[in-house]
């Protein structure tokens, strides 16, 4: 296990090194995604309000934000499905407005909703995709089989997609999104509504592929653990980028630790803490929540002054959820529940229609 692990790491380093050298020979590496002053209005409503950022080649870039924050609009512009009102965006080295066709052939898309043909088999769906993207049949033969094996669908490739489970469909879509070796793969909520085990598997595949193909990944998600995997994260709210950095730096930017005290009388404890330390706590079902600098040092001090009995103490560093809360005023999970509810409503509507 250890040997295999270190071989993997070594291999990954070598691939990256080779890629770096190769790129340097060619010249200054261009960012995979480069957005400058992007604006999109719908009538009087401004969905995207002057967004600028860049994604480096090979990066796993997380794009987070509450529903209606301008996330989908931005992605639609990057995928050439929507024209910007103002500003520019370059994806895989091409302008999304002036070189629409080139951008399209260099990106891969995995949407929230499945876009497979149910009456075609898994491998027919792949072949159809290859035709649309001009991948010659010989190359398809070389690529389709390994990709199917990687997502664990090789044995089901000749079954019609309507007999697949939700997780299998999603894995097939990821394989399909990579079939034409895109430089940038857009993953819009790729694991929404899937069970935890399937999500873990899908992420294993995505990581493997990232190491292998050095594809830049542009991800939107409502799952904190998925956001945690990103090299960098941008948080968009109200059409503007409110924060952009590595997950670690974003968490550090919160500045405080979270101390949770479960006491015999949380309300009394809250009043005492406010009087002595001047800190306003929040009453939560888990107990009294206090945002303080250096939580470990704070705990003994708070114990000196509290007269109510303490049952449980918890000190933790800020999570990405806290980061999200700080910059948008909402938790990631709140947004997630909205999204799941939406997707359920959509499925229900489809079932009724079908």
């Amino acid at each position, binding site marked *: 296990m250890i040997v*295999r692990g270190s071989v*993997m790491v070594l291999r990954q380093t070598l*691939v990256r090194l*080779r*890629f770096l050298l*190769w790129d340097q020979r060619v010249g200054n590496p261009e960012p995979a995604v480069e957005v400058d002053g992007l604006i999109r209005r719908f009538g009087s409503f401004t969905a995207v309000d002057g967004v600028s950022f860049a994604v480096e080649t090979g990066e796993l870039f997380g794009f987070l934000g509450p529903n209606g924050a301008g996330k989908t609009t931005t992605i639609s512009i990057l*995928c*050439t*499905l*929507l024209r910007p009102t103002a500003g520019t965006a370059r994806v895989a080295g091409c302008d999304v407005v002036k070189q629409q*066709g*080139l951008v*399209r*052939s260099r990106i891969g*898309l995995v*949407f929230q*909703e*499945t*876009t*497979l*043909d*149910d*009456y*075609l088999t898994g491998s*027919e769906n792949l*072949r*159809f*995709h290859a*035709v*649309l*993207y*001009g*991948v*010659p049949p010989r*190359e398809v033969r*070389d*690529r389709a089989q*390994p*990709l199917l*094996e*990687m997502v*664990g669908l090789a044995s089901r490739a000749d079954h*019609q997609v309507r007999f697949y489970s939700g997780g299998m469909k999603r894995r097939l879509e990821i394989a399909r999104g990579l079939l*034409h*070796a895109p*430089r940038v793969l857009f993953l819009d909520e790729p694991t929404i509504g899937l069970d935890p085990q399937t999500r873990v*598997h899908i992420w*294993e*595949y995505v*990581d*493997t592929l990232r190491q*292998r*193909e*050095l*594809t830049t990944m542009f991800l939107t998600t409502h799952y904190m653990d998925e956001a945690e995997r990103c090299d960098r994260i941008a948080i968009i709210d109200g059409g503007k980028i409110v924060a952009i950095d590595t997950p670690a730096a974003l968490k550090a930017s919160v500045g405080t630790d979270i101390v949770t005290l479960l006491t015999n009388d949380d309300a009394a404890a809250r009043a005492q803490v406010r009087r002595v330390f001047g800190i306003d706590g929040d009453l939560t079902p888990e107990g009294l929540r206090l945002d303080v600098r250096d939580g470990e040092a704070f705990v003994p001090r708070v114990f000196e002054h509290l007269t109510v009995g303490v049952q449980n103490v918890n000190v933790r560093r800020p999570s990405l959820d806290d980061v999200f809360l700080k910059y948008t005023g909402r938790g990631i999970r709140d947004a997630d529940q909205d999204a799941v509810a939406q997707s359920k409503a959509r499925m229900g509507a*489809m079932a009724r*229609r079908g």
Partner: protein
Amino acid sequence: MATEALRGVQTPTTAEPLRREGPLRRNLTTTWMVAVRELIRLRRTPSRIISGLAQPLLFLFVLGAGLKNVVGQNAGAGFDYIQFLFPGIVAMSILTSGLMAAISIVWDREWGFLREMLVAPVSRASLVLGKAIGGGSVAVVQGVLLVVVAPIIGVDLSVGSFFAMLGFLLLMAFALVSFGVVVAARMQRLESFQMVMALVLQPMIFLSGAIFPVRRLPEWLGVIVRFNPASYPVDAIRRIVLPGSPGLTIGGSLLPIWSEALITLGFGLAMLTLAVRLFSHTD
């Protein structure tokens, strides 16, 4: 599991870009693939073939038998009503399944596959053309299956007239699917489908001369029939299958069959052009 699968997997990195085909070849193969997809889907949904046959056969044998004695031999030169009805029913089946095939675009939109096609780096024209060819072929398959009943009702089809009819069926199917794509291009929901059936398909069938002869119609109806693009292939197919049928006239002069072919082709090309235009502006 993933690492297991990894060993032995050899895929290129971005350092060695994938070879791609040029745009012309890509668009042509896309048209072909979109067309083939229609036939694959037809083969995998046999119920569609059966229900596609049920309606025309019901019309032919029930309506035909029921009205045969009422109409007597007045339908046309020496044919009974069932025989008169037969070519009309074949054309009707083309009309129905052609329009249905085109409407499947709305189905694709609903289930997402349309999006897979629309975000790809191919021209909308190659998608629409593929749909017209594929949908047209599906319609012709359905129409040709009906020819089996010809001997039962006493219609003699020579090999020559069979192929002439086949040609017209292809032409008509192509025109009708293109027309259907124009109708479907702006349709967002399957619910609109009922409306299309009631407001487009049924009037087109009834006013095409497929069910009754158009010679002795009131004048205003006769005018509408001549504005219905489906009337011309219906008339041509009837004259091929039942030689000696009276045929459509405009201003008192009989239309030659080749001019009816031209009208159908012209209508089809106009609709195809319009369909491509409409589709280029949807997202």
